[in-house]
């Protein structure tokens, strides 16, 4: 089994933040090597180094045995490294054939483009991965899963020896995921090395030969996984002596523990008060634009309703529908029993609905503006009657929330981009607490947040619930859903799949999300 | 916010400091020793700087200035924009020039500025295109509008055999002097050449390219057009180029007010039959002399004649100093002139 890629003692830091601390990672031909870790554990930085988008500060990279000095996207491609990013790096205005053509040819700028050949190759690649997409369709008109498949076709086309896949099944349906797994196994058979990044433990167990777990920029070990049906014994002798791959077969529970690094139970603050009367109730709510179909759930005062489901199950779309960004076109929304019509975020805020968005850097906090300005942005009408800014009042309100949520910043005038992920999330949270909402919708509240800030945010959420706020928490972080929610609603395909009690087991939630009928993942 | 308030304060201080400085130098004309003893400043405003017509006027003005030893400032916009004319005149007022000689693109617009200049004791004389009578002392008139209008119409009639259609190209329809000339052309046509017909009047904003495209359009819209008459020096070469490109040299005649140099090529090729104008260099020369005399008090309202250096005597009708009769440059005499 030839050694395709060898990283030893790779370190990388951005300013003061050490993203990677001497990582050693190897990839063999004909192997699926999974890379696991919470958000912010350094996975994407590692990938960016391998693909040449970033340069490592220290350590060495060997590709097919020889040391590689400076790696740029162009040279990485020449060395047969292909990467499928979660946000597909495609050209929206060009057709599928053109995109694949651009990614495949390393032509210099003056060579002729042979269109027939280009279309033929594109059609053949698309057929190979079983995607029924026309090569003449514009990328802009394709759905996210279809774009993902085009990315995979590009990687396939370049004849890459090393293929990196970053959460490829995030927005794929059941059928498409199965199809993708067949293609991956086919690639592995032909000797390609695949680095597979995913949160979904059951996918790793289904597919990967080995898994490396990253936590806070460090590698906490590489383990064999049963998925490849190949017993550890078949590994060639020198692999097992290399010490890095321990022969023990790892289980799901151990993996989660390694990833999180602590026992699950005591992380989350326990729920104290019993939930009060129904605050928010949805009756057959639908929004064709967002793909949300007859959602009927209730959230009680003082209760945290966890909203679980795979990415693409329509949870964020549901939140946007309730909040009025993509107004509902079916069903009703009741607030404390009174029917309400929400057609715009302004109306939602006026009615006491607050939404902490998923994409913090684009929708949550305006990075160039100061903390105080961000915190008061949703309550201009209340804080500044007659639209006259009162900077003193604004500062006081900001200071109050900085103290209340323990935001670590140099002062109320510090700009958003000078804060860490966790503090930015607190500012976003403060903005919506300032509106004194009846219902608070949280969308991936602890995504990309360091572990310390994560538990602080959990304490805050629990305290808000205790004060009688109805909380609807969307999260893909399984332990967080299990630890925080009083009740769990699982969504799939834009509608409710199951309502589970707070203390359900992880696999019960996961199987509901995946749509399998019970049984272990 | 403290810093921005500090900033605004500083701007105010600069403005005030600017003001008290002014108390030293009295505003308006320099009321120091009598103008005759010290060198006076003449400000010369053409309608647009690049226009060859005004370039040759300026040459004459410079010649006169060299003889008189005054200080001559020539400034103007590159395209005839009335707002810029006013700005330049108002700058001259605060500059404290002694006399302004201006060619007026737009009578009312510039008169507001010229009246302010006179209120500040600055003498004003106009040339080529007049302002409102109350806004200037004298107008150096190259030729009476009637003289120009009749000369143009007579030449047009001679070339067309006193019948047929003709079209007029003007600078801009709002240029007072050209409107007046057109009025006299029409008067002369109605009186002497009833079966000549003016089918269109197009403006070319003193742009040669536009004159060319307007003429091209006219040639195709009015197939049996016999003559193009331009009341702006930019019109004649533009129309000539259009006629040449349309292959109608000779069949469609082309005349107008124009400088010999600019039209020599077309006159020799027979595209343009003749251009009517006055000696623009003399116009500039006479204007500077008049301005100088006005500033020094040698030229007073009511005079009947005025001696302008080497050019000799000029007749004054009311407040118009008459340069003389318009002159026709054609194939046989155009080479003797160089302006």
């Amino acid at each position: 089994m030839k050694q395709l890629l060898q990283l030893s003692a790779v370190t990388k830091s951005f300013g003061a933040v050490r993203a990677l601390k001497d990582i050693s990672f190897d990839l063999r031909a004909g192997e699926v090597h999974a890379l696991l870790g919470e958000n912010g554990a350094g996975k994407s930085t590692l990938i960016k180094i391998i693909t040449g988008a970033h340069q490592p500060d220290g350590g060495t990279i060997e590709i097919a045995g020889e040391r590689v000095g400076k790696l740029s996207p162009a040279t990485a491609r020449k060395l047969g490294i292909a990467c499928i990013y979660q946000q597909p790096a495609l050209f929206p205005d060009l057709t599928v054939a053109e995109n694949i053509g651009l990614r495949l040819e390393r032509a210099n700028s003056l060579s002729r483009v042979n269109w027939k050949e280009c279309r033929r190759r594109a059609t053949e690649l698309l057929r190979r991965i079983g995607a029924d997409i026309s090569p003449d369709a514009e990328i802009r008109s394709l759905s996210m899963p279809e774009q993902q498949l085009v990315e995979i076709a590009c990687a396939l086309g370049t004849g890459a020896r090393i293929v990196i896949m970053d959460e490829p099944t995030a927005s794929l349906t059941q059928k498409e995921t199965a199809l993708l797994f067949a293609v991956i196994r086919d690639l592995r058979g032909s000797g390609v090395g695949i680095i597979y990044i995913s949160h979904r433990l059951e996918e790793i167990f289904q597919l990967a030969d080995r898994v490396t777990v990253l936590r806070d920029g460090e590698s906490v070990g590489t383990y064999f996984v049963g998925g490849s049906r190949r017993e550890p014994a078949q590994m060639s002798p020198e692999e097992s002596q290399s010490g890095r791959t321990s022969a023990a077969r790892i289980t799901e529970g151990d993996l989660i523990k390694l990833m999180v690094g602590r026992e699950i139970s005591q992380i989350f603050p326990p729920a104290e008060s019993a939930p009060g009367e129904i605050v928010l109730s949805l009756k057959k709510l639908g929004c064709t634009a967002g793909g949300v179909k007859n959602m009927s759930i209730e959230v009680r005062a003082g209760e945290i309703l966890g909203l679980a489901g795979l990415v693409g199950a329509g949870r964020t779309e549901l939140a946007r529908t309730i909040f009025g960004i993509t107004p509902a076109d079916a069903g009703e929304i009741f607030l404390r029993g009174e029917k309400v019509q929400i057609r715009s975020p302004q109306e939602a805020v006026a009615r006491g609905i607050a939404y902490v968005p998923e994409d913090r850097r684009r929708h949550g906090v305006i990075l160039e503006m100061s903390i105080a300005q961000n915190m008061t942005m949703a309550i201009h009408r209340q804080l500044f009657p007659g639209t006259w800014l009162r900077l003193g009042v604004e500062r006081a309100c900001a200071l109050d929330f900085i103290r209340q949520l323990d935001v670590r910043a140099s002062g109320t005038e510090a700009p958003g981009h000078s804060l860490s992920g966790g503090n930015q999330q607190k500012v976003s949270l403060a903005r919506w607490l300032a509106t004194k909402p009846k219902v608070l919708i949280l969308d991936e509240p602890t995504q990309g947040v360091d572990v310390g800030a994560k538990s602080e945010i959990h304490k805050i959420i629990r305290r808000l619930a205790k004060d009688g706020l109805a909380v609807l928490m969307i999260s893909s972080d399984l332990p967080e859903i299990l630890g925080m929610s009083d009740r769990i609603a699982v969504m799939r395909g834009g509608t409710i799949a199951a309502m589970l009690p707070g203390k359900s087991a992880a696999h019960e939630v996961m199987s509901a999300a995946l749509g399998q009928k019970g049984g272990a993942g | 916010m403290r810093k921005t308030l500090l900033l605004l304060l500083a701007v105010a201080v600069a403005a005030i400091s600017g003001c008290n400085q002014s108390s030293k130098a009295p505003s308006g004309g320099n009321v120091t020793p009598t103008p005759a003893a010290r060198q006076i400043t003449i400000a010369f405003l053409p309608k647009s700087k690049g226009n060859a017509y005004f370039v040759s006027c300026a040459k004459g003005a410079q010649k006169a200035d060299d003889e008189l030893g005054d200080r001559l400032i020539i400034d103007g916009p590159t395209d005839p924009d009335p707002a810029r004319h006013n700005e330049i005149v108002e700058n001259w007022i605060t500059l404290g020039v002694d006399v302004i000689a201006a060619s007026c693109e737009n009578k009312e617009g510039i008169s507001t500025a010229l009246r302010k200049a006179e209120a500040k004791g600055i003498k004003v004389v106009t040339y080529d295109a007049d302002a409102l009578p109350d806004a200037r002392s004298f107008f150096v008139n190259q030729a009476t509008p009637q003289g120009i209008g009749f000369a143009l119409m007579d030449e047009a009639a001679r070339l067309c055999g006193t019948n047929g259609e003709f079209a007029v190209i003007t600078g801009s329809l709002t240029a007072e002097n050209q409107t007046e000339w057109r009025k006299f052309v029409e008067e002369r046509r109605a009186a002497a050449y009833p079966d000549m017909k003016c089918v269109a009047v197009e403006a070319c904003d003193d742009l040669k390219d536009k004159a060319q495209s307007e003429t091209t359009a006219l040639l195709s819209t009015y197939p049996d057009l016999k003559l193009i008459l331009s009341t702006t020096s930019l019109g004649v070469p533009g129309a000539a180029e259009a006629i040449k490109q349309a292959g109608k040299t000779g069949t469609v005649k082309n005349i107008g007010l124009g400088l010999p140099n600019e039209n020599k090529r077309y006159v020799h090729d027979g595209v343009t039959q003749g251009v009517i104008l006055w000696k623009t260099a003399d116009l500039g020369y006479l204007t500077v002399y008049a301005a100088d005399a006005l500033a020094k008090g040698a030229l007073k309202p009511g005079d009947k004649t005025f001696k302008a250096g080497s050019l000799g005597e000029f007749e004054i009708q009311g407040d118009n100093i008459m340069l003389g009769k318009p002159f026709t440059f054609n194939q046989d005499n155009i080479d003797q002139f160089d302006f």
Partner: protein
Amino acid sequence: MNTDQHGYKSILLRHETILFVVLAVEWIFFDAVGHNFGTYDNTCDILRHSCEIGLLALAMTPVILTGGIDLSVGSLLGLCAILFGKFWRDAGMPLPLAAACTIGVGALAGGLNASLIAWLRLPPLIVTLGTFSLFRGLAEAITHGVDTFTDFPASFLFLGQERWLGIPAQALVFIAAVIFFWLLVHRTTFGRSFRAIGFSPEGARYAGIPVGRRMAMVYVLAGIVSAIAAIIYTARLGQAKADAGTGYELFAITAVVLGGTSIFGGVGSVHGTLLGVAAIAVLHSGIAHALLPGEMAGMLTGVLLILALAGSTLPKMISGLRARKSTPRLAKQIP
């Protein structure tokens, strides 16, 4: 990530202080070189000549703050000047009524821009390029390229040419506009929402800011101010012509960008724009008083703008070199 404390305020302040120094240097240089440059009369003249472009620059500031642009203000000035003349001379309206109607038309024209840009979310550059040619065309069509409106009564011309309490009459209108726009941008929630929209339109929408209404507001305001500038232009010149205001929109944008406002939106200030207008006006007047040809002023304005732009990337360049980022983010074009 550089941890510079003040964010956009510090960059802006450094830019304005440099511009203020440039303005002071200009003033002192031309006062020494030019004749009677530093006099009170000339200061009034500078104010009078730069009043219209100053007004347009003031109205352009919130437009650019929201990340948009408005090429149609110059043509709208021409159209409003013509309509003002038409209302007064042909429709026989008394001047104040004619002025009010003209401002109404300005608001309507601004409303056209607003509806296309704010509701249909079309690119501002191209929409205002269309209305740029539409308004100029209407001005020429109404007057058949011929008609001009003149001999306005002296009481009206007073607004454009005389002084009241020692200050040029239109300067009072300009000062009132400065105060209005300064308070609007720096002291009200509207200004705060303009910046938020400029930095991140989606972020503003998620924060419950009525993005559509705020963007519509800035374009309607630009229309109204263009109409006011048209009336003052007509008063100053004593006549209204179809080609009034040609090229004024580019002068206004130059002044706003010179004043430190970023063309991408978010960063910018009204006093910065004021300094930009002053720097250009003083330059033009100074050159005239130094008896240099007028075109030098235009060229130096262009050079000044290039230096200001290059200068604005200096801090980014230095921090770029320090952090040895791979490639600076390619310029994000206007949406």
